[in-house]
């Protein structure tokens, strides 16, 4: 048991190092973009405008995703907002993408990386 906790802790350090803490790779950003646009994945475009010329005909249930670094200086806060937006807004229409395991944790990191471009 103890061994497995330590193992998990070590694994955790590696994962944190590889995720939002480091600069996002082009691959990760591309993956985030694909998830943003895919109706069966993130489908963020259903509700959010983003100034990416490929993100055509967005919905507007949610705010436009602009000035993300200014609005979310800490990427962890943005990540948490995607993971479960009901924490900050109990009546929001936005699904809890992490809490309800709609997307994997890697997927959420990729979306954060993509959003941070805008």
């Amino acid at each position: 048991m103890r061994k497995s906790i330590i193992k998990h802790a070590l694994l955790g350090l590696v994962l944190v190092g590889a995720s939002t803490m480091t600069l996002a790779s082009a691959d990760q950003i591309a993956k985030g973009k694909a998830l943003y646009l895919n109706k069966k994945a993130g489908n963020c475009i259903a509700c959010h405008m983003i100034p990416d010329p490929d993100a055509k005909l967005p919905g507007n249930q949610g705010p436009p995703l602009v000035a993300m670094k200014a609005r979310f200086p800490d990427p962890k806060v943005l990540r948490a907002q995607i993971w479960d937006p009901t924490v900050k807004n109990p009546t929001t229409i936005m699904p809890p993408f992490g809490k309800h395991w709609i997307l994997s944790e890697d997927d959420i990191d990729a979306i954060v990386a993509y959003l941070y471009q805008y």
Partner: protein
Amino acid sequence: MKIIKSLLVGASLALVASITQAASSGNTLASVDPEADRLAMQSFFQKRFPQVPLDDYVNGIYSLDAGSREQWEEIEEFPPYEFDIEEGEILFNTAFANGKSYAGCFANAGIGIRQNFPRWDESQGKIVTLELAINQCREANGEKKLGWKKGKIAQISAYMAYTSRDNVFDVQIPNDEAKAAYLDGKQSFYTRRGQLNMSCANCHIAGANILIRADLPGPTLGHVTHFPVFRSKWGELGTLQRRYGGCQKNVRGVPQKTQGEKFRNLEFFQTYMSNGLVVNGPGARK
């Protein structure tokens, strides 16, 4: 640090405020006030869309969005449900094997009565929707039940709505049992379901007339008045509860039972909210 602290205080005050106003507003049988709910719903939409006359809500999203209204009005010039009304009339008037017909099961021989459904049925101790009453009529006359969502039952319901056009919805809550059914329906309407964690209210109150990609969710006020509907997406006529199931699947929830207690109570609540508006079913929708 001080800023963070005051932010936290602010956040907790906001939480207190929102819960305080909710705690006293109709989530128990003792405190629920259907008439106050109905007026609050009307005033919510009238404040949000002050230019839209109350009577126009029977047209759903087309009362709010001028762009799609134009297309819809063109569709309504040659209504896609016309054939279904004719079929419904034939079915309605066709005698059962025992020689009786639907007319014998309803007040006023079934003509012009849509506005009174769903209704609390004292002898059964439950809410009866028009579709349930149609199937109960069949069974009472030794006929098999029809499928709930489309086809013949939707056609008969469409004809019965058609004969009730312009009658004012007048759903009654005669006693505490009916009130409990109303409260259950109200709770369902505001309850989040499915992996996407959405309630009816998310789209049809707060999210009404705001784009979800290319779709504009309609306001719940006037939602039920035009059912059953010929939905272009279905390519055919369908009942309100068919749409309920579809909505629940859309939010990735396993749908509740068609014409089960939950859906009947939900329809009861939703129709009560539209009391005072006229019947204009059947309708055509995207």
